[in-house]
């Protein structure tokens, strides 16, 4: 059974841990103990792709206390596979360039001791 720690350990190691239901094939990111689609507990781990597109975003100007001083900072919901999304911090992008559909790639940094999932715009050669 997957726990939050599994996902965070994976972040610290530089990948996105997801789960896939062996019964119905639904994918969960982060991984879950039970498939929300069919209720099965028979799930297998896999590494989610690092590249995706911004599905929604915001730029936080009034931060919570733990991120005070970092504002303004951008946060995005990124779609990595059809219907499979995750929230992460956006780096290296100006407010003007941030848009739905932007191609991004995951990066894994540390904020103090905590792993933080980030995304950066994909640089096309």
């Amino acid at each position, binding site marked *: 059974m997957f726990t*939050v720690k599994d996902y*965070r350990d994976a972040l610290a190691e530089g990948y996105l841990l997801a789960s896939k239901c062996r019964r119905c094939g639904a994918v969960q990111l*982060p991984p879950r103990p039970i498939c*929300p689609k069919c209720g099965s507990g028979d799930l297998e781990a896999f590494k989610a792709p690092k590249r995706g597109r911004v*599905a*929604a*975003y*915001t*730029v*936080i*100007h*009034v*931060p*919570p*206390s*733990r*991120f*005070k001083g*970092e504002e*303004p*900072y951008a*946060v*995005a*919901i990124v779609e990595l596979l059809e*219907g499979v*999304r*995750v*929230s*992460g*911090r956006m780096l290296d992008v100006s*407010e003007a360039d941030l*848009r*739905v*559909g932007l191609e991004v790639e995951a990066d894994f940094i540390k904020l103090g001791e*905590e792993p*933080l*999932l980030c995304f950066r715009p994909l640089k096309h050669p």
Partner: protein
Amino acid sequence: MGLQRGVAIIGAGMTRFHHKIHADKTGRDLFVEAALEAMASVDNGIELGDIEALFIGNFSSDSFEHQGHVAALMADWLGLTPRAATRIEAACGSSGAALNIGVMAIASGLYDVVMVGGVEKMRTLTTEEVTDVLAMASDEVYEAAVGFTFPGLYAAMATAHFHRYGSTWEQLCAVSIKNHHNGSLNPKAQFQEEVIDIARRLGERRGMTFRDEMEFLRSPLNPVVAYPLRLFDCCPISDGAAAVIMASEEAARRFTDTPIYVRGIGQASDAMALHDREDLTTIRATRLAAQQAYRMAGLGPEDIDVADVHDCFTIAEVVATEDLGFFPKGEGGKAAEEGRTSLEGDKPINPDGGLKAKGHPVGATGAAMAYEMFKQLRGEADKRQVPDAEVGLIHNVGASGATVVVQIYGR
């Protein structure tokens, strides 16, 4: 599924919602004030002894006031002990969820008369600390930890909605301007001032003049909170309480000739994290809760004369009016811009000013919506009265949509 017996609201009361005037009051002071007003509003009078149970919606008195176990506390302070008292927590949907439980408690036959209320005393903390507490209602591990705030989640919904439907921030402003207008007509509202009057007042202080509301709303006096949402897209931080008294249809007749009947109720949950929802432009729990309530009432969205919807942010009102079926998906912003949701429109929304202008002491909001419908459907809403309102709906959301409660009332 239906109710085993009819349920009606026979009385309703609320404090004014405000960010300053309750500075010297605690949550219990506020709740007792609202509860006493609810009791005083019962046409034929009611005694404390008539109330058999208390259900209280409250999000986080623990964080705001260092006070847990508030249902028993409120029963104690109201003189209701030894009656059963229970706290219900569903973030900003706490007292909406309490309303549903109150209805079920009566419909089951267990009680004939109950009080359902909500209370939140938030202004004990700074804005930053309140932001922290509210963010607890999102997914701590997967949303808050990467930097999402509450306004941020709704801001993300707005960008998805703008992208898919071509809706605009200007349409969101129409919601804010309309709700401030309605608030200006409501003596219980936190802000009883039109946006244009606020623009004039704040402008004078800084030697600035504004041609119209939009020029003000685009100015630095309306700073960005979480792009694309600015200050006037966000409900304020408020202190306040609200309470209603519910009775079985049969018991209600003893207390009043004009009870407001509960015609339908619904409630649904969804993925906690916004990113896990099927569609980022829809609150699915709203659609499902509304379906249940419409089915139970035997009514549809076209039958609703007036509605209080959960406009914690302007985009939330737009999305709600679509998901409740009042307007086609993607056209909620346009409808607001065209004035269709104003007091004079064909679908008046938030006649009390909504969360935006009336205020949003989070745990009290659902009960305050029921208060408003009690007034509207009895024709007691004074300057903000929707003419001939016979069927009303309330829509109360917990957090970014992981909990939604809908109730439909009729005369």
